[in-house]
């Protein structure tokens, strides 16, 4: 900050006659006095007063009518929404996740011509148990049973077509075992007297 000339300071303080100042100092004095007057002046109208005055001059655009009319006008008024592309993509991804990701409903949900089959078996010490049957074309690895608490009781729920299904448990990937809880058995027809378990799935519509 450059120091002010002492003569100019004296003139501003009223201790010197401004007319005695040199021409350049006189000019600076005049500018400073004008700036002081501008700063000390009160604005003629505040911003709020000017807005209200504008509204009074245009009564047609003023907020006339009840809350319902104002709401209807607000709904009909076009608005501009500005979104950053990154936010738009994030929003779309969020919506897709809500719509597409499965919810936990406490078990599988069957269709009208399907039902829920519950498979339970007691196989202590088994490393793996799976169900293989006519509902999965006797394919291995399609439906595994779980024993989360390691108590030897393996179980699984599955949505299957309603009707009759033959099946067996496969324990540790090699031992074929009928389900002792099935209650229904049928000879497998291969001539050694082996039996498949028989499951009859009720359609969901017929279940209580």
């Amino acid at each position, binding site marked *: 900050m450059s120091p002010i000339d002492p003569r100019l300071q004296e003139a501003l303080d009223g201790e010197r006659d401004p007319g005695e100042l040199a021409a350049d100092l006189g000019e600076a004095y005049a500018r400073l006095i004008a700036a002081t007057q501008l700063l000390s002046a009160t604005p003629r109208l505040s911003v709020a007063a000017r807005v209200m005055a504008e509204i009074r001059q245009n009564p047609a655009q003023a907020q006339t009518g009840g809350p319902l009319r104002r709401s209807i006008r607000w709904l009909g008024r076009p608005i501009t929404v500005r979104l950053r592309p990154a936010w738009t993509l994030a929003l779309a991804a969020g919506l897709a996740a809500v719509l597409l990701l499965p919810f936990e409903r406490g078990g599988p949900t069957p269709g009208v011509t399907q039902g829920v089959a519950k498979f339970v078996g007691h196989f202590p010490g088994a490393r793996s148990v799976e169900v293989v049957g006519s509902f999965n074309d006797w394919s291995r690895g399609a439906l595994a049973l779980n024993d989360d608490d390691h108590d030897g009781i393996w179980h699984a729920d599955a949505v299957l077509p309603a009707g009759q299904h033959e099946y067996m448990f496969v324990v540790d990937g090699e031992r074929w075992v009928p389900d002792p809880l099935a209650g229904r058995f049928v000879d*497998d027809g291969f001539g050694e007297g082996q039996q498949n378990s028989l499951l*009859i799935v009720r359609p969901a519509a017929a279940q209580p």
Partner: protein
Amino acid sequence: MRVRLALALVLAATPLTAQNGNPRLAGRVPPAALAAIDSIIATAVAESLPTEPLVQKALEGGAKGIPVARLVNGVRHGLVQLRDARAIVSRSAPARAALDGDVAAVAAALARGLDPGLIERLLSADSEPPGPVLHAAADLVAHRFPADSAAELLRAAQQQGLHGTRLLDVAVAASHELQREGGRTPTEALARVRAMLPNIPVATPPHPRTVTRRPGRGS
């Protein structure tokens, strides 16, 4: 010349084999059994019999590693049962064409050991899909209830408005009555269930927590 002729025959036969073979069986059934099984399935198609039970039997045999001869015999036995089943369905309802589902259900009942005469009687008495009533009858017979009495009970249940898989509940209720403490004879158990009609409780599958830890075939 002979080599060329043999080559031509092989080339001509290959596409036919590929067309006739069931694609679901490829890689799932021993190659040595494939031709015989395809032939059995082709016979079923020619006789307008359902083929899915035969495909399933072949897939089952392949998955279980059944030797080829027994596997083929098992599928052939399935074909015989389907023929018998279609004959039963035709006799019980001569006026209408035998549906594949009905034939397969009757074949399954035959596989469970149900008497053909009993099957025919049950089919004649009811126009619904026969699967549930046949399984209910097979369940009762498996629990040593007399076949005729079992059929009468199921007929009574149908007359009281129980149909479809609800008939399975009738069989479950009868077996529960048979196992009640103090013991009942089959006749007493059937009479008791008949008195309960149509208020037969719906049978529920076992819950994991209710499984009894007892030594069994798989335990």
